[in-house]
């Protein structure tokens, strides 16, 4: 089956070539004038270091480890995120802590080391999906860069403080509750 090619019949005015050129120049000049009188802040271009793009809700940027009001980490070191992570960039080491009065004799778990290799992370948000405690969120910070590879290994305290300033929270560098010494089962 052949394809019928429709030929556009140009009017004599269009075939002079001069008139369409003038029309085209009109269009470009309109753009020129429009852009010239648009204030910088309203132009399409975002002049990056001076202006920053406001990220849409749901953007997956830098991670934050959430905390309770008292500064305790929400994460319970369940390793779900580490399992879900397709880039295998989360490494967690758990530790135990407890106020045995509250926890009725049971031990509680939290991460002692929570490391994300930001160079390997693909910002897919799977960790956020997997977390049963809503303890890890991806938020809107997209300027994740550093001068060397080591500074791209975000540790537990880096992750807990990533949005401290933006949210007006205090920076914390230690858990409110000390970790319990690992109990050795007496056999």
């Amino acid at each position, binding site marked *: 089956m052949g394809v019928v090619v429709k030929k556009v019949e140009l009017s004599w005015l269009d075939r002079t070539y001069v008139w369409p*050129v003038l029309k*085209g*120049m009109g269009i470009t000049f309109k*753009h*020129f004038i429009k*852009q010239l009188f648009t204030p*910088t802040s309203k*132009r399409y*271009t975002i*002049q990056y270091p001076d202006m920053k793009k406001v990220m849409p809700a749901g953007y997956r940027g830098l991670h934050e480890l959430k905390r309770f009001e008292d500064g305790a980490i929400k994460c319970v070191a369940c390793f779900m995120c580490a399992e879900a992570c397709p880039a295998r960039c989360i490494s967690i080491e758990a530790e135990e802590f407890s106020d045995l009065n509250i926890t009725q004799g049971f031990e509680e778990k939290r991460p002692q080391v929570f490391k994300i290799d930001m160079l390997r992370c693909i910002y897919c948000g799977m960790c956020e999906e997997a977390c049963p405690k809503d303890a890890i969120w991806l938020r809107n910070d997209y300027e994740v860069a550093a001068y060397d590879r080591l500074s791209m290994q975000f540790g537990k305290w880096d992750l807990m403080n990533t949005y401290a300033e933006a949210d007006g929270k205090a920076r914390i560098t230690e858990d409110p509750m000390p970790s319990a010494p690992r109990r050795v089962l007496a056999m």
Partner: protein
Amino acid sequence: MDTLASLLHTSPALAWMVVKIVIVFSAVMLLASVWTWVERRGSAMIQDRIGPNRAALFGRIRIIGLAQLLADGIKFFFKEDLEPTDVNRGLFWLAPFLAFVPAMLGFAVIPFGRDFVSGGTIYHLSVLDPGNGMGMLYPMAIGGLAVYGVLVAAWSSNNKWSILGGMRASAAMVSYEIGMSLAVVSIFMTTGGYDPAEIISAQGSLPWHWNVVPQFLGFIVFFTCMFAETNRLPFDFAEGESEIVAGFNTEYGSMKFSLLALAEYAHLMTASALVVTLFFGGWQVPFVAHPSVGLSILSFVVKLLFFAWVFVWIRWTLPRFRYDQMMRLGWKAMLPMSMVNLVVHAWLMSHGR
């Protein structure tokens, strides 16, 4: 002028000459380099972008990006002057100058303001005084030389893309030269002389007496041919990023490249000066029969800048032509059109109009 001349122990004529040369060529150089910025800012605005606006004097004074010129100059100046191993050394060095000098020289006969009398001497505001016997033929001839810059640059680079670009560009220039010359000839005919001063004074101060109105066809032909002559889009066959890399200047870098780039803009300035002189009354001020010298210079500069801007404007409006399309346009449209223009005007003149 006389005091300046006596201070320098030269004759007033010589001093005036030097002053004119310095003023004209530095102005053209300055405009050419400013136009590299105008081109980029203008194209950005046309495409809803912003363009170079961040270069700043002392890191602070931004002056809408004009400092970009200095930044570019410094950058080109301090770049390594790389020379590929298999180039033809002498020609490789010569080519930027061959491109740049003719582009500047064409300006020499263009009157950029009306003559004035001071102390009994007439001062002409063009580098070469009128009545030098060359008149408008001189920029045409010099413009023809411009093809050497491109061709020599292309040939000496010893690069297939460069040669392709150079060949195409020279073919384009040569074929458009004919149509252009015929368009100019009909102006010579109606004016009765080929001196730019005569052409300008014959046009008078009324815009509808300027050559563009009776010879609109000639204007279209001439202007189109100027695009081919200056090697600018839509006829930029010397270059062509999509097919032959950067064409004739592929192998060039640092100051040599910057000279080639400046040559293009100097050529653009000369071309728009020619358009203004031939078709838009040169320094004539609309509706002012006897303008003052300053006003006439201002009028010339405004027209010049307008046409230089039109060159930029058209570049960012039209897509490129294909090579065969351009050749067809040159030989089958521009040449017959300018011939018709010539014949019609000859006929009109012979019937006493």
